[in-house]
């Protein structure tokens, strides 16, 4: 390998290692654990003040929007029989409704409440595996009953 070709290889290695370093430190500094609600409640004491991402379903009737500023919001997510209350300051996505699948990022306070910095709720039904069309069934059955003598 000529001297100049070696220079190219060395330069490439330097660039690649610099970028690799960025990736490694980037991961180390920004990573967070991703748990379900039941996994979190099972280890509440160890997970305090740790950045978390938690997945669960929104418990019906628990979504509250502050009367004064409409931006302080609370709701409760559940999974596997346990629940975690969540607080969030900001506009929650339109898809956050009763029963929605939600993913919340934030830190768990000493009070057991998840203080969220980011809320995501599943975009409904784009590629759902199963959909409940039974309400249309009743309409269809009723229509057939009306038309048959």
């Amino acid at each position, binding site marked *: 390998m000529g001297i*100049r070709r070696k220079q*190219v290889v060395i330069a490439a290695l330097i660039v690649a290692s610099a970028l690799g370093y960025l990736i490694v430190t980037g991961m180390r500094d920004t990573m967070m654990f991703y748990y379900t609600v039941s996994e979190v409640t099972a280890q509440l004491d160890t997970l305090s003040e740790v950045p978390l991402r938690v997945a669960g379903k929104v418990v019906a009737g628990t979504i509250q929007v502050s009367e004064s500023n*409409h931006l302080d919001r609370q709701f409760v997510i559940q999974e596997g029989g346990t629940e975690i209350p969540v607080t969030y300051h900001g506009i929650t996505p339109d898809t956050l409704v009763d029963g929605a699948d939600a993913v919340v990022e934030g830190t768990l306070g000493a009070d057991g409440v998840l203080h969220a910095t980011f809320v995501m709720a599943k975009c409904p039904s784009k*590629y759902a595996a199963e959909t409940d069309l039974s309400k249309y069934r009743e309409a269809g059955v009723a229509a057939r009953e009306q038309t048959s003598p």
Partner: protein
Amino acid sequence: MIALGHSALVAAFATAAYTFAVALLGAHRRQPALVASARNGVYVTSGLVVIAAASMLWLLANDRFVVRYVAENSRIAQPLIYKMSALWGGMAGSLLLWTVVLCVYSTVATWSNRRRHPELMPYVYAVCMFTAMFFIALQLFAADPFETLPFTPLDGRGLNPLLQNPAMAIHPPNLYLGFVGFTIPFAFAIGALASGRLDTSWLHAIRRWTIVAWFFLSIGITLGAQWAYVELGWGGYWGWDPVENASLMPWLVATAYLHSVMIEEKKQMLRVWNMLMVIATFALCIFGTFLTRSGIVSSVHAFTTSTLGPLFAIFLAIILAVSLGLVAWRLPDLRSANQLESVLSRESSFLFNNLVLVVSCFAVLWGTMFPVISEAVNGVKITVGPPFFNRVNVPIFLLLLALTGIGPLIAWRRASWPSLRRAFVWPSIAGSGTMVVLLVMRVGGPYALMCMGLSAFVVGTVVQEFWRGMRARASANNESWHQALVGLTLRNKRRYGGYIIHVGIVLMAVGITGSSVFQSEVEATLRPGETVDIGTYRLQYEELNHFQTSGVDVSSASLVAFDGDDPRFRLVPQRHFHPGQENPTTEVAIWSSLRHDLYIVLAGWDAQQTATFKAYLNPLVKWIWIGLAVLALGTILAMFPDRRHSQVGIANY
């Protein structure tokens, strides 16, 4: 019609299988008659798939709700255009769209090459048909678009209103035209490997295909970002969501390939690398399609887990095994005689361009898949979000921006200092001058300064290239400057189209930097008449109205923006409540200028008309969309071939 559509798919599977077998047999036994039969097989298969797609469109347009897919994605009151766009609104339909785009592309590739590349074409037919077989099999066995319900609903559920929007209607087809388009270059690569025709003929065959697919993918990705910005109401346009990343990864590798292929054409170097790039692009397209449908990574584009995941994994494994096996087999024939000679050369800068793009793609892939990997290794899911991706990719894109300026101008083989001086003095002055000005104005931190400085550097190199080329041509041919400019560009569309694309990228970089680094936001709860300030604007809340339009309940707030004492414009953020949908939709109000966007969301209100707003001032966002338009124009120019004449009157660097 249902039976017609379904049986067309079944028949297409059979003819695709036939074509696959006969094409390979014909290539192996060198029997042109078999290959000709395979060619016809491609046409017949495509025709059948088109019939299947047309049947589905008919069923959608005619409200045949007995078909499950129609009931899930359409309803009587839906506008016709969205009934048609429902073809790609759900899982099964999107697979049908993938297949029909693949068949149309295969037909065009087959027909345009009917008298060319005879050693390569049988393998091209085989690869295209094998892929078609996979997607048709998915529809026949896992997600049947023509599945019927045991009863006929009176009305359908309707397409999600978020998808009933022009940008959202064309975003998936654009993406598919991109993703699926990369099947053709991949097929030719397999053809070159299998047949042993490893010279540049396969590169020429796929050149326009790669550019066209890249064109659509670029538009599709940016349209998706624009839709997120306009529709989702969080003030941004890119969240590093797994589905977004799935579309970005093939784009990064395809961009790398588009550059490294020039090295192979000119110097016959990097041949193994180019093969791997084409394979990687296609594999990432399939991987992206898999990622968005398997549910293995959580995403806002929530696709629930389905049986499709494992099937995609198997297909991907087959593709990789066959293609990498072929590369390994042909490795001795792919080694090139020429070597890299110097760090300061065009070959090197293109190599660094590739390195940087591939590392970026790897970083995105790593960050996206890490939850799956960490769970498999440790049992614990660990994720990373936008901070990781931004932290890694911002320096990478700055490096790329620098290379964008350096690459086209630096000399081949070994650049001498005089040549470097001649090429880079003026652009460097432009770049550093810009940085000094911004530094003095105290605008922005180090990353923003570097981005703006490098952007000026790149624009400087492009302007210099056009200027010098135009002047040389004008004096040699005695033309006026605008004749020379047009003549210059049309004579070398690939080169100058490429420069225009680079300018488009720079504009997008400027827009992205401005809107992310310099964004400001404010929240306010106001009674009618009260105001809030953002940037140099004062926003006055006028009133809240509730009304109904086309069956949708609308709550609408209006605000007037004052610059000083002058009322400038009115913004009307709204919330829409659609019948049959559980959640309301946010309609963001955006006032857009070249300098910035004023972006307002209505967060809530009460009976006393007190309303809460969240407002963002996003500088330079419009330049992202303008940059895409410039990129698109440059790409269209670069698509057309150049006549290969000697370049009279144009300086060669």
